[in-house]
């Protein structure tokens, strides 16, 4: 690492000194020190809730620290707003994008730029935006409406926006959370292009695997504190994992320990044709009590449709679905649930939970017994879950939208696995650990394993191949709506599965 010395002291582009930030009931940042050198990629690593976003928000001027200071080029700056941060060359790309869907890319990029002329000439602006985008290897057509873009493209718009406004320091908050692997690679190229142009990047992440590649230095946070800072070369995943979690993590394979029993979920030649396109072709599979069947595949190969068909959200256009031997196709979600299905959708907060309701309310939401809710026993039950599953929350009455991804997923799983009762014996789970940190991944896997051991039939649909391989007793690969590969969990040949996923088997 290069050191930039001036008058004997290292001159950092941006530093946090003993930054403390409290929220009601949480100490989000506890005397945090952080230093960013010019031209470096400095990763801020930590589990969800560790305080990374809070620190980044303090650094960009969104939050005012309760104590401590922010230094820009060695002198203290009192940032009062993100705008003020930007005037100091600091910009943050938030985890949740802040774009206007109905605007074009160019309009989004130039929005809020104070030195814009009163009269806007669309062509000029589009040219300028395209130029900035190109300089950093971010191909974008400035005339396209943002509402039509993928998550990866939106992120590029956010980055271009920051660069257009003259940012020297970019704080990227969980930039890879929504990206597919090839998009991540592209993002890394952009990050490199930016540092080559002399910009510095703070890369916030909770994913161990990816940060080693891109970072010049990794600073790890846990529970609001910095637990260590490791330079490139000294950083290995095991060390980082320990700093992150404070204990060893077990992500080794989990297989069924009980003999599988009767078939609970069966699909017989199920097909779905929509708008003249065959989305699901002739899928037959069965899941027995006490086993997990994993569906692997690259995103967009029919996973969503398959899950929705089984959950009763869509009716198949051909074939039969049997739960517990009873035919359930096309009878609607409610009846399907009554037949014994529990469903954990991919979109946790949108479809799975009611975001503004409390944990307690969400737990009793799908219960059908009676008209009145017994609040007291519901609360007791919720508190038991919170303790047992180590759900981090100020209170059982906290709205689920305020929970981190891992914790809200735990609530949802708790409801679908345990609170649903013994009547629900078929569990369909979609990408259950997407966007979660290692600790939470471990917890979710443990929960699914427990569901299996308790005799449920679990259908796990996941784009994360490692997850499928870790959990499934039987692996099926979905490609263009068909099952193209089928193998028992303990006999998996990873290469063969990979080829099948790419449609090459």
């Amino acid at each position, binding site marked *: 690492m290069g050191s930039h010395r001036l008058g004997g002291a290292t001159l950092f582009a941006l530093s946090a000194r003993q930054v403390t930030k409290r*929220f009601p009931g949480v100490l989000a940042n506890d005397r945090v020190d952080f230093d960013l050198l010019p031209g470096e990629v400095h990763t801020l690593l930590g589990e969800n809730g560790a305080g990374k976003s809070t620190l980044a928000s303090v650094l960009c001027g969104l939050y005012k620290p309760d104590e401590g200071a922010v230094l820009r080029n060695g002198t203290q700056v009192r940032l009062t707003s993100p*705008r003020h941060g930007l005037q100091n060359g600091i910009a943050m790309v938030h985890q949740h994008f802040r*774009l206007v869907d109905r605007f074009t890319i160019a309009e989004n990029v130039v929005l*809020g730029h104070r030195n814009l002329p009163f009269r806007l*000439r669309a062509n000029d602006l589009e040219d300028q935006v395209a130029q900035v985008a190109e300089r950093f290897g971010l191909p974008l057509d400035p005339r396209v409406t943002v509402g039509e873009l993928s998550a990866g493209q939106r992120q590029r718009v956010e980055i271009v926006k920051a660069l257009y406004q003259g940012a020297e320091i970019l704080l990227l908050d969980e930039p890879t959370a929504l990206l597919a692997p090839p998009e991540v690679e592209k993002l890394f190229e952009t990050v490199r292009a930016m540092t080559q142009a002399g910009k510095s990047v703070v890369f916030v992440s909770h994913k161990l695997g990816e940060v080693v590649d891109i970072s010049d230095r990794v600073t790890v946070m846990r529970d609001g504190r910095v637990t260590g800072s490791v330079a490139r070369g000294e950083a290995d995943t095991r060390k980082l994992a320990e700093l992150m979690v404070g204990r060893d993590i077990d992500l080794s394979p989990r297989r069924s320990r009980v003999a599988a029993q009767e078939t609970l979920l069966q699909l017989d030649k199920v097909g779905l044709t929509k708008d003249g396109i065959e989305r699901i072709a002739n899928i037959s599979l069965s899941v027995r009590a006490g086993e997990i069947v994993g569906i692997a595949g690259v995103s967009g190969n029919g996973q969503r449709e398959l899950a929705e068909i089984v959950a009763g959200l869509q009716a198949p256009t051909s074939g039969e679905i049997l739960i517990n031997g009873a035919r359930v196709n096309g009878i609607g979600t409610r009846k399907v649930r009554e037949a014994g299905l529990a469903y954990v959708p991919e979109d946790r907060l949108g479809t799975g939970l009611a975001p503004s309701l409390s944990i307690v309310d969400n737990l009793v939401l799908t219960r059908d017994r009676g008209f009145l809710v017994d609040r007291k026993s519901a609360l007791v039950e919720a508190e038991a879950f919170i303790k047992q599953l180590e759900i981090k929350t100020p209170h059982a009455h906290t709205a689920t939208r305020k929970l981190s991804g891992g914790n809200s997923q735990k609530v949802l799983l708790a409801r679908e696995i345990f609170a649903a009762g013994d009547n629900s014996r078929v569990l369909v789970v979609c990408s259950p650990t997407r966007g979660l940190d290692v600790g939470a991944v471990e917890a979710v896997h443990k929960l699914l394993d427990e569901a299996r051991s308790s005799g449920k039939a679990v259908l796990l649909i996941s784009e994360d191949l490692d997850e499928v391989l870790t959990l499934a007793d039987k692996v099926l690969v979905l490609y263009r709506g068909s099952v193209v590969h089928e193998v028992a969990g303990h006999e998996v040949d990873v290469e063969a599965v990979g080829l099948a996923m790419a449609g090459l088997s």
Partner: protein
Amino acid sequence: MNSNVWILTFADAISIATTLILATIGAILTERSGVINLGVEGILLMGAVTAFLVGDGTHNLWLALFMSVLVGVAMATVHAILTITLRANQIVAGLALVIFGTGLSQYIGKPVEGKSRPVTIEPMHLGKLSDIPVVGPILFGHDIFTYLTWAGALVCSLYLNRTRPGLVLRATGDAPATVDAQGVSVAMVRFVHTILGGALMGLAGGWFMLARGTAWSQAATTNGIGWIALSLVVFAAWRPLRAIAGAVLFGFTLQVPYTLQGQQINILPPEIVQMLPFVATLFVLVALSTPRARKLLGAPKMLGQPFVRDER
């Protein structure tokens, strides 16, 4: 049937459209910022009665119109304070303005109820243009405000689509958090445009009184035109230029029954047309009720929602 009558009807339709356009643009500017002001009808009435009273007292046309603009500004300011600063429910605050405007205009207009208008906005004669057969009387026999209003719609459209503040305005209605993150005050943008919108609505009322109303009558002067303007906003998909077309269409619909009646043709009784504002009101409320409908119609995404900075 006498073709002159139809020419007059078209001319009248375009004339009535002036009020509709002014009020609709006022509402568009307001709504583009994310604030919905259902008080249009109340502001129109207050603008009208103010123009009448000031005209009656001073016989100064310009002062009369200026005062109706001021009244519009005052009422919109109340709405802005209630909904932006105090985050009151925008629908309720708007309806309160209507009730307030209806009552107060009735009260202060009582002494002059039925009195004929004191000053008149005279139509212009545009020389040769006005003498063109058919087209002349329909298009070129109006007063200066009609033409200014058309120009205003164009300016407003350019403002929205081609200027920096227009860009910020559109963003404020759609994604206030984004605007806020850029360091622009959402409240300020909303205040400015709600008040600007109120000014236009006030002017719409004043103009209607002095150009088209023959006498002040609380019950009959604006006759629900404010509600029609609100539905025009939806019809126009929040675009000023489209508002012109919609306004002329509605102006025509409002005028035709009277023409027919004058011709002793009774296929469309005026009572039906008098229902139009109520239908329009229902239409607006239904159209804006569900997020789905709003999305379909292209309403500003955060229309009617107070903005609170969420620290998460």
